[in-house]
């Protein structure tokens, strides 16, 4: 993390130039076309996201410049957007970007243990990246999956009902490049109650719908 959000990152990892690939350029044009004439600047957020995905889950400064120029808006306006939203990473992150939720509901059911397990398994602290560039670990505020707490987001996917044990297994599987299950790690379907379905059981039985 930079000492200040108000000053651009200038690390050696910052590329000198950026341009959308042909495929992404096509996508970008489709995104821009969604907005009425003269309101193209509204596309700044999806375009920054597209640029972030193309750059390996982080947003170099030249990419922000590129998007701002593409939308004919002052570059500072793109910087404002990119620094405001926490989902834009202004510095490189690992291949697996582990964001563990530590807001109250997750914390009540043991997110601290999840964080500890991650730190131990990965050998890094919060805000750090493993030397091989595979994992970055951070804690985040509520991601809105409280019902399946504790949870973490790794890249685009949610991993829920975490325990220290299944977290370690999950990270190991990711490190080994094995397929992993997204969503609940305990096999719970959606957000149904942990003890299985509880409501309307008796009625369903009485009506002969359920055995």
């Amino acid at each position, binding site marked *: 993390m930079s000492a200040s959000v*108000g000053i651009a990152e200038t690390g050696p990892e910052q590329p000198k130039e950026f341009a959308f690939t042909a495929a992404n350029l096509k996508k970008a044009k489709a995104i821009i076309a969604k907005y009425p004439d003269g309101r193209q600047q509204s596309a700044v957020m999806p375009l920054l996201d597209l640029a972030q995905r193309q750059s390996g889950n982080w947003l170099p400064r030249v990419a922000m410049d590129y998007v701002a120029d593409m939308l004919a808006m002052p570059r500072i306006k793109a*910087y404002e957007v990119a620094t405001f939203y926490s989902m834009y990473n202004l510095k490189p992150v690992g291949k697996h970007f582990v964001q563990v939720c530590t807001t109250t509901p997750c914390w009540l059911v043991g997110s601290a243990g999840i964080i500890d397990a991650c730190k131990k398994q990965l050998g890094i602290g919060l805000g750090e990246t493993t030397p091989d560039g595979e994992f970055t670990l951070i804690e985040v505020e509520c991601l809105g999956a409280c019902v399946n707490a504790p949870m973490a987001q790794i890249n685009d996917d949610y991993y829920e009902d975490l325990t220290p044990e299944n977290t370690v297994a999950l990270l190991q599987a990711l490190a080994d490049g094995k397929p992993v299950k997204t969503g609940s790690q305990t096999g719970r379907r959606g957000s149904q109650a942990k003890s299985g379905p509880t409501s309307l059981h008796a009625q369903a039985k009485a009506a002969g719908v359920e055995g």
Partner: protein
Amino acid sequence: MPTLSINGISVEVAPGTSIIQACEQLGIEVPRFCYHERLSVPANCRMCLVEQKGAPKPVASCAMPCADKMEIFTDSELVHKARKGVMEFLLINHPLDCPICDQGGECDLQDQALGYGFDRGRYIENKRAVSEKYLGPLIKTFMTRCIQCTRCVRFADEIAGAPEIGLLGRNEMVEIGTYVESAITSELSGNLVDVCPVGALTSKPYAFAARPWELKKTDSIDVFDAVGCNIRIDARGSEVMRVLPRTNEDVNEEWIADKSRHAIDGLLRQRLDQPYVRKDGKLVPASWPEALAAIAAKLKGLDGSKIAAIAGDLADAEALIALKDLMTALGSTNLECRQDGGKFDPHARAGYLFNSTIAGIDQADAFLIVGSNPRWEAPIINARIRKRFLTLRENFQAAVIGANLDLTYPYEYLGAGPETLTKLASGRHAFAKVLQNAKAPMLILGSGAVARPDGLAIQALVAKLAAKVGLVRDGWNGFNFLHRAAGRVGALELGFVPGEGGRDLDAILDGAGKGEIEAVYLLGADEIDMSKLGKAFVIYQGHHGDRGAHRADVILPGAAYTEKNATYVNTEGRAQMARLASFPPGEAREDWKILRALAEALGKILPYDTLSQVRRRLAEAASVFRNIDSVTAAEPGPFAAASTGTVDNAPFAMPIENYYMTDPISRTSPTMAKCTEDFGIVEPRTGTHG
């Protein structure tokens, strides 16, 4: 028209008026930080909360429009409680460093904390610290003091047209900055310091220099361009510490350009503080009687046709009339005030004035700029045009003939030279239609466009265009001449131009080279080619040891604009008075007094001994001086003398190479030198450095 009551007083306001504006109409003060009447309204500081009857919570008066039958209270218990709460939050992260803060004594936060602050802090956590930002050579930052009102962001975005400052990050991490380290590329950046309600942005050259209560404040007029910005000069003792804008809605609103504000440190350098006389090729210090005697010895018996006078850019009207009267007494008609080589017709008054007036820009709907870079020649006028662009948006129509530069508003680039102008004047260009169809078309002719041998023909061509598209209409005169020099229009009004049989600039220089002109009087004229003066005896009267003084045979030390009571006429034809803020250094004297004394030494006594007598003479000489502070409009047309000359199709050259150094004061200013360096402007060779 909604009618509402504020503190029980009924007031009727125009639709769309906000509550804070309605309060101001009644003279009720509402504290505010983010709200600024010339900027957009973000309503993020929450200091202007008022109570509205029936509303569940206090409302932000800056953003709430007045509605019929509203009942507003600005002094209730709820309001005080709300504002105290806001103030407490603002002070959580604001350092208690008023004793070392340059804003101290003129700080909105300090003042309002007196009214709404708590006598102790309840916040025991650490205050946050924010790293400093680099915003250029004129602005010093202390970002920990920032309260995130975003006035600077909006000023840069809206008024200056340099959207380079932003609000970065979020929540407690939020910071004002440029993100990428860079100076603000605007000639109006000094105003950021004025709009900042706290000490986050302060003036770098003025840092830790003085406290507001130590300064003697003098209302005056700016001379660094021909806009005639209203300024306040703050001096301590004999030193001018800073210059601030004064509000004048018709001229500069409440802004001034960076050169006007920061070139003043040049007033302390390379000053001429005693007379000099050249002896054996060297300038040696002399007393006043010696210097005057040296001039008398040369001029006595010399035929008037062999004497010439050239007035410089900063010459005041009092000095100009005194010099003109002296030259007339000596029998010379070789007067010239257009030291840039301007070739326009000096007798057609409408042809050399900014007839639409600066405030008139607010009505104009089509602009044609010819041979001018208003951003450098008159930043305040350029900002006014940008303001018009922000109002009209897609209906704003502007075109430029000349250099294709960033003027902070969009325009159609028509061409580089008179060729395009010819096309327009004959109606063969599409933009002629635009001007014709506009309600209030404005043509701005730069002084650089006519500072060339075919200047008269260019002016005539523009006059032809004016007639073709009908720039003059009912109550509207769209022909505008944009001057660069504060002293020029005053000189033109006084007829400080070649009289009958008189020589113009080229002829004077030519004559001096050939020996036909034996004595040249330079009244602060530094921009002419001194090498062309040949063997002529040169008298230089001025305040800086610049080009003219280097060439002079006798130097008479005059007063700079901050050191004299003087009248200047701006490009609109508005006479305004500059006032003495500090005394001229050493032996230097007010300029008209020098000329009065010289005339006496030459045996030609000028009929005035006091400033009021000089001013009476001015009023006699030209009507513009009878009408101080308001525009003396010109009869609409003719805009130029009939010209038979042919137009040369060479592109218009921009007269200003470096905005930050255009005159003897700014050329000696270290701050302006720093700006030149930091903005990467190649400095033209001046011969005064080193």
